[in-house]
């Protein structure tokens, strides 16, 4: 057992432990790496975005998710890149880990989250074919801190807003006022996620493009998916839906996309602030009007930016599986899975766009329709995983909005999306 401490930039800290060997550094270790470095956002990063310091130093933006199920889907969701995820549900790891549920599509063995904070981790035996979460964390080299009152932590984040935090290997005796102060000072210097280009840090393994074909798909369409940190379940849903799915990495050029001659383009989810992603916004601005565009989460925000809307950083974001949204077309309500720390300013939407979905808790914009520019997008995650599948129909709606023709011979197959053949 190793004693760990979670330290927030504002000095709030709590002790916990990890019951397996962990990559968390000691105080000195941490200070020598991070303390000597400049603010990360100003520090040049290599193309892969993953420096040794990052891997070792266990710091990042601290967020909480209220989803009670799907810890593995959460930990592997690329949208959480570089974040320390606090699970509000206290019992994590109950049924183990299965390769089937991984959401990361990039770099199979790298875990997007920086670390996880849980109340208790299950260390018992798991069913055959699964591996225990501690074993998994060890293999993937990620820190899972246990033994924390995650509710207090959550309340702290809720009240004080998002901030950086670090997980360091140390006992209560070792943490003196001086080192605590030095650590918090260092964390404060890191600034926030706001303005940080997280996409550049995404370890990309997608070649420029790959293609999935499905003869039995519901729609006879060619779709380009712009992969900005896409969840695997989006690809699974789409590949069951359209006959030809082209996946392009974030560096794809407009030429490549146009060469593909797609019926429409879907911009995927992804990590962090959309604002600094200028090349991507520019790309979308150019595509706008020529090809129908759809978006999910980060994709939705990028599309809004390309229309001239503004985004803002939320106090602590929406992360969970129980977010209620209202479809403004028919006033129907849906429970959705969400994961975003940024949102679009409602008022900044251009005239051509009309709000589609709105969050009934805080009134924030959850989707818009722009028939003029043929842009349709949602902020939440219709692909679920984790979370409810109540809005999985959105994918079909995208196809319909983009006026893609249905394959007449085949009945509904969306329900079996996950079993679709992936080339």
């Amino acid at each position, binding site marked *: 057992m190793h004693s760990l401490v979670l330290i927030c930039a504002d000095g709030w800290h709590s002790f916990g432990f990890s019951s397996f060997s962990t990559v968390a550094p000691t105080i000195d270790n941490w200070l020598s790496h991070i303390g000597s470095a400049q603010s990360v956002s100003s520090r040049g990063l290599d193309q892969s975005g993953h420096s040794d310091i990052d891997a070792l130093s266990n710091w990042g933006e601290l967020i909480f998710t209220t989803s009670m199920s799907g810890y593995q889907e959460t930990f592997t969701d690329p949208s959480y890149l570089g974040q320390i995820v606090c699970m509000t549900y206290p019992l994590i790891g109950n049924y183990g880990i*299965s390769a089937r549920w991984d959401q990361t599509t990039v770099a199979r063995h790298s875990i997007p989250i920086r670390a996880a904070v849980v109340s208790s981790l299950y260390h*018992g035996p798991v069913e055959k074919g699964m591996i225990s979460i501690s074993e998994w964390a060890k293999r993937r080299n990620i820190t899972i801190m246990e033994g924390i009152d995650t509710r207090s932590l959550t309340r702290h984040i809720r009240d004080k807003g998002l901030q950086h935090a670090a997980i360091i290997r140390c006992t209560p005796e070792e943490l003196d006022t001086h080192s605590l102060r030095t650590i918090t000072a260092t964390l404060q210097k890191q600034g926030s996620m706001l303005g940080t280009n997280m996409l550049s840090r995404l370890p990309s393994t997608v070649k420029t493009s790959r293609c999935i074909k499905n003869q039995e798909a519901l729609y006879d369409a060619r779709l380009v998916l712009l992969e900005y940190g896409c969840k695997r379940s989006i690809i699974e849903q789409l590949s069951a839906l359209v006959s030809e799915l082209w996946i392009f990495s974030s560096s794809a050029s407009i030429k490549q996309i146009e060469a593909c001659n797609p019926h429409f383009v879907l911009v995927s989810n992804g990590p962090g602030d959309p604002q600094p992603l200028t090349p991507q916004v520019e790309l979308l601005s150019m595509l706008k009007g020529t090809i129908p565009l759809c978006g999910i989460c980060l994709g939705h925000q990028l599309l809004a930016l390309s229309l001239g809307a503004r985004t803002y950083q939320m106090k602590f974001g929406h992360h969970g599986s129980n977010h209620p949204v209202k479809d403004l077309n028919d006033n129907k309500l849906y429970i959705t899975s969400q994961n975003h720390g940024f949102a679009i300013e409602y008022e900044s939407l251009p005239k051509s766009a009309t709000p589609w979905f709105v969050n009934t808790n805080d009134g924030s914009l959850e989707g818009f329709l722009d028939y003029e520019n043929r842009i349709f997008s949602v902020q939440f995650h219709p692909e679920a995983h984790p979370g409810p599948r109540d809005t999985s129909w959105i994918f079909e709606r995208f196809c319909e909005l983009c006026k893609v023709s249905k394959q007449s011979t085949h009945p509904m197959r969306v329900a079996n999306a996950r079993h679709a053949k992936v080339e």
Partner: protein
Amino acid sequence: MPSRRDIKSILIIGSGPIVVGQACEFDYSGNQAVRALKEEGYRVIVHNPNPATVMTISGVADQVSFDPLLCEYARDVIRRTRPDAVLTTMGGQSALNLSLELEQRGVLKEYGVELIGARAEQITMAEDRGVFKALMERIGLACPFSQQVATVEEGLALATRIGYPVIVRPSFTLGGRGGGIARSEKSLRTLLSHALATSPSHSALVEESLLSYQEFEFELMRDKDSNALVVCSIENIDPMGIHTGDSITVAPIQTLSDDAYQTMRSAALSVMEAIGIDCGGANVQFAYHPATKRQLVIEMNPRVSRSSALASKATGFPIARCSAKLAVGCTLDEILNEITGKTRMFFEPSLDYCAVKVPRFEMDKFPIAYLGTQMHSVGETLAIGRSFIEALNKAILSSESGFIGFEPLKNHSLKELDSIIKQLHPLRSHAIVSYFYMLFKEYFAGHTVPAHKNSGTETDLDANAPLHDHKATNNETTNNETTNHKTTSDRGSVFDTFFSSVPYPEIFLSHISRIVKKTAISTWVIHHLCEYALLLCAVEELSQEDLQSLVDGAYSTQDQGQKPDQNHAQTQTQAKAQARTQAILTQILIRAKESGMCDSLIAKRSGIDEELIVRARRVCGIVSGLASIDTCAAEFEAETPYLYSSYRAHHELAPLKSKKEDRYPIVILGSGPNRIGQGLEFDTCCTMAIRAFKRRNHKVIIINNNPETVSTDYNVSDRLYLEPLFPEYVERILRYEQGDDWASNPKQQKYAKHAKPVAPMSSGIEIVAQLGGQTSLNLARTLTDRGLTLLGTSFASINAAEDREQFSQCIHSLGLTQPKHRIANTLQELKVHAKKLGFPVLIRPSFVIGGQAMEVVYSEREIDLFIARHRHILSDDPILIDEFLEQAEEYDIDAVADSDSVFIGGVLRHIEHAGVHSGDSASVYTPFVLTQALMQDLYCSVYAICQALDIRGCVNIQCAIKNDTIYILEVNPRASRTMPLVSKTSKVDLIDLAAGVWLGETLAAQPCFARYKLKNHPHIAVAHSEVGWVVKESVFSFDRFGDIDPRLSPQMQSTGEVIGLGTQYGEAFAKASAAAHCLLPTVGLVYVSINPRERDSRSYYLLAQLNRLGFSYCAHQAMCKALKAQGIACEPVEADVYKRIEQGDIALMINVPEHRKVSSRDEGRVLRNLAVRHRIPYITTIPGLKGAVEGIAYLQTHQERCTVIDFDDEAYTNSH
């Protein structure tokens, strides 16, 4: 969109009396519904014969009818109150059935009433298994496979196709008689041929067995715009085959992956959509096979249920309230989430804790060998914690079932435990822990712990050691655990194992796997039980000396300040060793507390003084935090949260004390889980008191753990603690609420100042212990020892009433009479004393609740039998022997007293004579049979007793009258079972009066006191029934328990009660009987057998009267002869009586046994049992017969007519 305006008034049908399987959760939901509908501006009428309910309290609904839940009466209620709609979903199955009947018999059409909530077609669709199954198949969901067969061969062919085991259910037999499980072709052949023979239609259902399937439940809501959501998901710890009411359950679902969970969730929503529930809640149950991932829909309830009450309490989502609002056309996004005060009800609660429900069984009264598909538990408790085991432990502690938390069973060998584990025994989870516990003991003693690798097939668990890989990195554990022949030293100590990086030695994996196989309980649960067993072992290793030095050490550091130690090498090593010991101690204490062990349990297991444990905990800073249930996992700030304690939580809310008023809130101790003798009535008293205090602008806190109750509703009190009613937990809350919180920020620092002995609680905060029945009184005893003050009657007075000797003295000094009594200190003394008193005598062991083992004996021989029967519970405690007042009239008096006056709310005369527990006897209010003088005597005695005992608040006095002498039997200085009933029918809220007394108001100054004041005694007021005759009838759940004698005895057995109101005694009696499911016949054959002692002129007179009303008799020879001698015609029957009962020839059974206990082979008992099973009305006492004769006479001459009470009439407004 606002609620519907085309309807103005709504009738809510309640669920009637409390029986096993239909308890007070429906009062909770009904009450929420009434309030929700009143908020929307509707006139609300409640129809429920259960007098103990909150939904029938004055001021809740506009009008109430206490009439039986029968179509005829309901029709009259509708005729009189003219509702526009009937809300069907609030009263359980009873209400659904009645609603359907009203629809089918055209009553609704006749009066232009519509069903809301669930409509007739939806009810039938969900209830009709065939229709339901077809519907499920249409939407692509699977149901368990089953098929009707008419021949054995057909059945065998079917079984080969679906695989063994199969379940056989003969068609149209009572209570599933003749059915069973067949595991092989051979057993199926026998079973099926028997079943086909038993079935009147010669057919049987062959169904696939779902053994080893897990059971999951979803609580859903859906509104008229088809917005649907899942409120709560529940996982049953026990697999399919055990009724969910008898299962330990946990919310939310723990062992399903997101993938499996979401598949099930979507399925649940589509079931609801298919049935067409579009304005309310429902519950869908699934069976799931963890290995094959097969998912089956089991059933769907289109109404609120026990599970929905549980789900509401576990999540903070008021399902009944929302259902009611949806039923009148609101949508989910229009209803405010009152818990957060910000968000709307369209959201799925996110839990950041784990809620565990534990059923409570009455093993002593209704012995249960094993559990099955029929529910047996009488109550339940809910506990919340940050881990499963913490919540489970708290729930077991709350259930007051004789365990102080999750303890291993005493004195069982591994083999015996194994056989308990195999059966579906109620104590199975305890047995599993005991099994592992003993295994660990053997392991640490160096004995061989057999691996179970070769038992059965290969293990399903992944033992190829991701779990055990860390061993290499850990130098604390030895690597030889897998070999079995090592000595203790090789295996290391308990601590070594406990602190190793693996949860337990690998050898235990095979045992876990084996138990998982045997019980079909999930690996996840069994793992926790195994881990807990190891923790128990570690706790037992704690030593008094080490803890003492830990506490002393904290003292000395405090004394010496920061003075540096002298650098002796020896002291250094010593200090190191000490530090290590302390670290171990601290860790074990933390783990024990985080696993929900209470200090008493730690003390019991380790043999250390409890106080030392408390001090050590404080030194280490191990204290619980009080966290809130806020529906949103802290994502939003909550406004009306309720709280639970956990050792991995921090305080969130300030104490409730408002600074301005500078007054502490009043704390009410609830009554805990329902049980025989302590049920809904006490919770209703608590709720009434909360109302009364709120009316006086006092803040109220309630502590309770029964998820079925109104008092645990989030907005009834100012603050709710969902906690065990156990001294440690209650003290924690009280200390916190009065700001005397010795460790409000449990950071892991040393709290030297806390090493001091625990200071008594400063007085200030006051608790009410009179309302929660015996639970709260017992709790008060411990709490007053720790410095707490009781509101009202002092503890000394309570003691004086409860202590037999003091009580006798008091009665004697007042010149009152008591039955002669003696105390036997040994079993031998029993006979001596009994002889001196003269037979028959009433024997009752002390320290038992609800009259357990209380019996009337008529001879010395019977005393021997008594001893033999109860040897297991008779300990060294003295046994009380009372003169038994045969054929005496018994009375129950409910009163409120202050220092100078007494307000007698009511005198209830028991219909049965002495010898029947007051909770079981029927009674009548107001009794007009006493002479004026005797009445006066009675009132004055009550006054004298209250004054002598210095009663402040509620009191219940029981007395018997024989030959014009008043015998005082018992004084209970607390609210009684009948107080809600008396309050409702006298229209004087007794609890409100009591609350006034507690806050220092004078009784004599109350308006109602002046109204009812006696002319010749200025300090006594006596109220009476304002609604005519009131008959209270007890309701039993005998049909749930196979072999039970349904006669009345000194031992309480009833689960609920009903009342009947009428202008005549006969009317009230007939209604009460009907409401208690004993429909008096108006014509037919009566089987009669009366014990020789009671074959007197009185009984013959009654039998003759019944004869004149047109009934004919049949009886056994002796009785027959006796009747003929009285000139009453009677047909002799012998053994053929059984057949005639089964054929339904007998309309009424009069079977009056003696008070003595009889063996299960006794013929009278067999007959009574048969009557229960065939639902034949039966009478077991002569006074009961008298009532029945009057009731029958009334029924023969009158139409069913309802009595409706209007709550806006003057009497009510005056009394407040």
